[in-house]
């Protein structure tokens, strides 16, 4: 029997980039939390993610979910060296803005503000897009993220030169590359397996 997608005709999807908390509604039925196997439960890494339809749906292939999540956490949370958290989140938000992932952009714009305290600049990134002027160091990070998000990849020596001139060392530039590259992974899952919704809707 052919399976059916789940549609949400009553949902009014957000039509603008926002800092607001959003929900996400899956187009494929995720396993119920109580029905997760031990392997699927372990693949969530954080047990609390069993409440999330997104992570329960991805748990249908637990090995890649677990490796995805551990990659994500180390790129963004491992501050033993490299780029400040705020600028990793900036790269994630800029990538999401450019790909058009309203859900991902909302989460990572909030994180960027938490770590940078630059709410007005982050709001302008959401409102005006990746061309907003945010100061040279942030502009260089946004431009690099946008070039990495293009298909084919447009990141070139000029981006490296600009990032170095803005004060980033090569380990920090490697972190920009990883943060933008990772959101090209995350955006594609979020955009193609379900849709955003106003929280509490």
């Amino acid at each position, binding site marked *: 029997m052919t399976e059916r997608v789940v549609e949400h005709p009553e949902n009014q999807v957000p039509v603008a980039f926002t800092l607001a908390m959003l929900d996400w509604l899956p187009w494929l039925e995720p396993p119920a939390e109580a029905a997760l196997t031990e392997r699927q439960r372990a693949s969530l890494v954080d047990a609390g993610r069993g409440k999330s339809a997104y992570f329960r749906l991805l748990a249908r292939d637990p090995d890649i979910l677990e490796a*995805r999540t551990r990659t994500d956490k180390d790129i963004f949370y491992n501050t033993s060296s490299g780029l400040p958290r705020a600028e990793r989140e900036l790269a994630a938000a800029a990538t999401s803005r450019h790909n058009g992932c309203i859900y991902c952009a909302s989460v990572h714009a909030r994180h960027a503000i938490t770590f940078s305290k630059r709410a007005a600049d982050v709001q302008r990134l959401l409102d005006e897009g990746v061309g907003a002027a945010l100061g040279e160091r942030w502009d260089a990070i946004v431009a690099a993220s946008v070039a990495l998000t293009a298909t084919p990849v447009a990141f070139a020596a000029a981006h490296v030169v600009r990032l170095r001139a803005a004060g980033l060392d090569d380990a920090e530039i490697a972190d920009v590359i*990883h943060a933008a590259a990772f959101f090209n992974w995350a955006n594609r899952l979020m955009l193609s397996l379900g849709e955003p919704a106003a929280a509490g809707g």
Partner: protein
Amino acid sequence: MSGADVIDALAGLAPGSAMAAIRERKPVTRAQAQASYAALFEPAEVGSVSLQERFAVAVFVAGLHGEADIAGFYRAGLVRSGASDVLVAAVYDAVARGRTTGPYGAFPPGPLSVEDGTGPVFLAAAEGLGERLAAALGHVHMLVFHPRDADAASLQALLNAGWSNGGIVTVSQLVAFLAFQIRTAAGLRVLAETAA
């Protein structure tokens, strides 16, 4: 799990190089990116997506990115999986017909509509690929170039072509992971080659 680090290989990073040393400072990122590759291309259980389908998708994705060497790496896996010459040629033909530049696509109607960008919608011919893989490559092209055009109908088309819920999750992870791996390798290669 294979020993050689795939991102190092695709980026052309030599052991002991400055860029290899930078990667060593984040051993978890490096190991988990490799574990992600292994989960998709050396899976403990192939489930409903065959190795041949996985490598065919990878050749298509790398080819659409214009990364001939990375496509060649996955082509070797496609051949190892037993793919016929006809299938390999059909995937490369799909690459040749599918090449464009992204990201484009439409936003939900509203204030962002002024930013809508148009581009091709790709339909793969079943000849040489089979109906099931052809349906997947149409979806994969959208995920590569215009993911914001995704909707429930695109997933229903995959279900109608014989893909399961779990199979769609795996195919989505394949394309999304490759989007990460290709950008990481391409970015680190540029960084390594740009003299200070």
